[in-house]
């Protein structure tokens, strides 16, 4: 099978998976007998019976479930993703989603950068000093990374770098939230907007706000990455071509950084794509802890309000991100590793 045939096959599957996910989520959120009326999020206690009736009609909750689904599907393709509940003042769900999504992207991108910058060197050191002290130390750091409760670590960072640093009179980082200095909206990504519009003070402030949440977010995944890099480095170092390179009389540096590293980093490159998707979705806890105005925090509010419109958008966009990331990663893998055939 040629690579483009493979991509087309995967794209068809991707559409199928998204369709199936949307059906299941729609059923779970709207049709599952939960005992809570699906329109509960869209009404308030001051409404009269007639007003409630109007809300039910407007959202289409009076129709049979399958009809609701197809109306919803049609609206999705027309770019009308339903209205949110009172927790977001009933604004369109896609507007609420994408307003906050840029913050989540900003956080996840910073998280991925930190993951790669710390995780890969840690993994390489671990492999080169296999079963010696540096390996044990980096192994503990890596394992501690993915054994750490994300909510706890975030609070500890706040406690030390904001509270105690300010108590001791040291320069301290902001504890929570994003920068509140205003910036004109160009790309939607606040940090980038600040740079593009020349508002450096804003960008710097946003950067300071970003450090703790980004580190907190990346701490979990950098452990994984370090372990993967270590394992693949060990695997590569055992192969014949490395012995060959050594027997040619090449120095150990050249063997490791020219010959071994290239092959050992292939899994790391692909894993980074998965991490990006996972960090986007996994940012929820970090956003909650740091009051970061990302989309995960909004989803959490929607969850406790039972706002099915927003949750449908949220889960579908994230499902799409996860399956697309998997596809992209598999394709990149094929380009990087010529041994892989589809």
């Amino acid at each position, binding site marked *: 099978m040629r690579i483009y045939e493979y991509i087309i096959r995967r794209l068809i*599957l991707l559409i*199928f*998976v*998204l369709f*199936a*996910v949307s059906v*299941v*989520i729609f059923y*779970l*959120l709207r049709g*599952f*007998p*939960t*005992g*809570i009326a699906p329109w509960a999020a869209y009404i308030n206690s001051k409404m009269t019976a007639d007003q409630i009736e109007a809300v039910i009609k407007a959202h289409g909750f009076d129709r049979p479930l399958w009809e609701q689904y197809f109306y919803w599907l049609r609206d999705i393709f027309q770019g009308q993703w339903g209205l949110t509940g009172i927790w977001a003042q009933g604004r369109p769900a896609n507007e609420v989603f994408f307003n906050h999504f840029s913050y989540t992207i900003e956080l996840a991108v910073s998280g991925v950068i930190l993951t790669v910058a710390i995780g890969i060197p840690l993994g390489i050191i671990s492999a080169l000093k296999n079963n010696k002290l540096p390996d*044990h130390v980096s*192994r*503990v750091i890596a*394992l*501690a990374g*993915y*054994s*750490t*409760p*994300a*909510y*706890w*670590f975030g*609070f*500890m960072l*706040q*406690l030390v770098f904001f*509270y*105690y640093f300010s*108590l001791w009179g040291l320069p301290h980082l902001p504890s929570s939230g994003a920068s509140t200095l205003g910036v004109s909206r160009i790309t939607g990504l606040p940090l980038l907007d600040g740079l593009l519009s020349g508002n450096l003070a804003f960008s710097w402030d946003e950067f300071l706000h970003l450090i703790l949440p980004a580190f907190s977010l990346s701490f979990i995944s950098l452990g994984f990455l370090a*372990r993967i890099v270590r394992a693949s480095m*060990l*695997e590569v170092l*055992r192969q014949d071509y490395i012995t060959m390179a050594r027997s040619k009389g090449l120095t150990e540096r050249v063997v490791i950084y020219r010959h071994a590293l290239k092959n050992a980093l292939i899994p790391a490159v692909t894993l980074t794509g998965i991490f990006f998707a996972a960090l986007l*979705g996994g940012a*929820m*806890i970090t956003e*909650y802890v740091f009051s970061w105005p990302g989309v995960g925090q909004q*989803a*959490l509010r929607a*969850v*406790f309000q*039972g706002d099915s419109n927003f*949750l449908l958008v*949220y*889960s579908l966009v*994230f*499902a799409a991100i*996860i*399956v697309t990331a*998997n596809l992209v990663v598999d394709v990149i893998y094929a380009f990087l590793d010529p041994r892989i055939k589809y």
Partner: protein
Amino acid sequence: MKEQQSASAVPKGEWEARLADIKYTLHLFRKNPLVMAGTIISLFFIGLALSANIIVNPNLALPTGYTGGMYPFERKYMWSAGSIINWGPNIAIYKGPESFLLGTDGWGRDLAKMIVLAVPVDLYYAAIITITAAIFGTFLGAIAGYIGGVIDEALLRITDIFFAFPALVLALVFASLPQFGRSLDTLALALVLVWWPPYVRLMRGQVLSEKEKPYVEALKATGAGNTRILFRHVLMNAIYPILVQVTMDFGGVILTFSALMFLGFSPSPALPELGNLAADGYGHIFDAPWVILFPGIVMLIISLAFNLVGDGLRDVLDPRLRR
């Protein structure tokens, strides 16, 4: 296949060979100090979980004898006087007759005792979730890999759908079911539903490579049935990576479970569970930091211990890495 790898003892029979293999594995295991540390800590927490209700009276979680079943206000978010730790200026010091090792939580309870009570809850649910998901996923994966064809394709597509599922949406739906109530069991069910797909992939891959091996052909030639080949022979040889995955997942499940509790999916705010105890400290991070600090540290140690064991198991059981 594993038997040939171990250097010691010429294999005599199936069970002697397996025993020799296990002995060699234990030997490798003992050589690694980190793994031994992980094993000892894990066993300590399992022992603590088993005896928690003897060490600490479980009724302390919901104190009686006070109005409204709650401790008086003077005990909430308090740190004992005379402690060596100085938290800073905003801390409330308890000057009453009792002394609390790790301070009190927002309910006025002794945090150290609540942590002891919380350990069995977390370990129990993490075990239930991991083992259920592993058995379910392994079974499906074995079938998909062994039978192949349409069933394989169908099972893989179903796992794809579950792979793309946000865990939180499932948790929400299950948490709001009136038939079950918002209980720990329904939350566990939600987590099982998002946790089984990796096992399908893992087991399927294992079975695919195992079933091409000569011993399967030999078994077929002797007239062994498919069920017997799959569940007695192929599964036995393919189970090691699953065991490693289970140990590694255990740490992850316990974190996810407590994180959901922390985010507010707990059935009762007074429940002693590590995530729930930490949630009590949300908003009190600067005037009662211990309420988040200590449950989190315990969670970290448990998760780290199991991950160390899993990590060591992987090295020890991987035939390419065992020397």
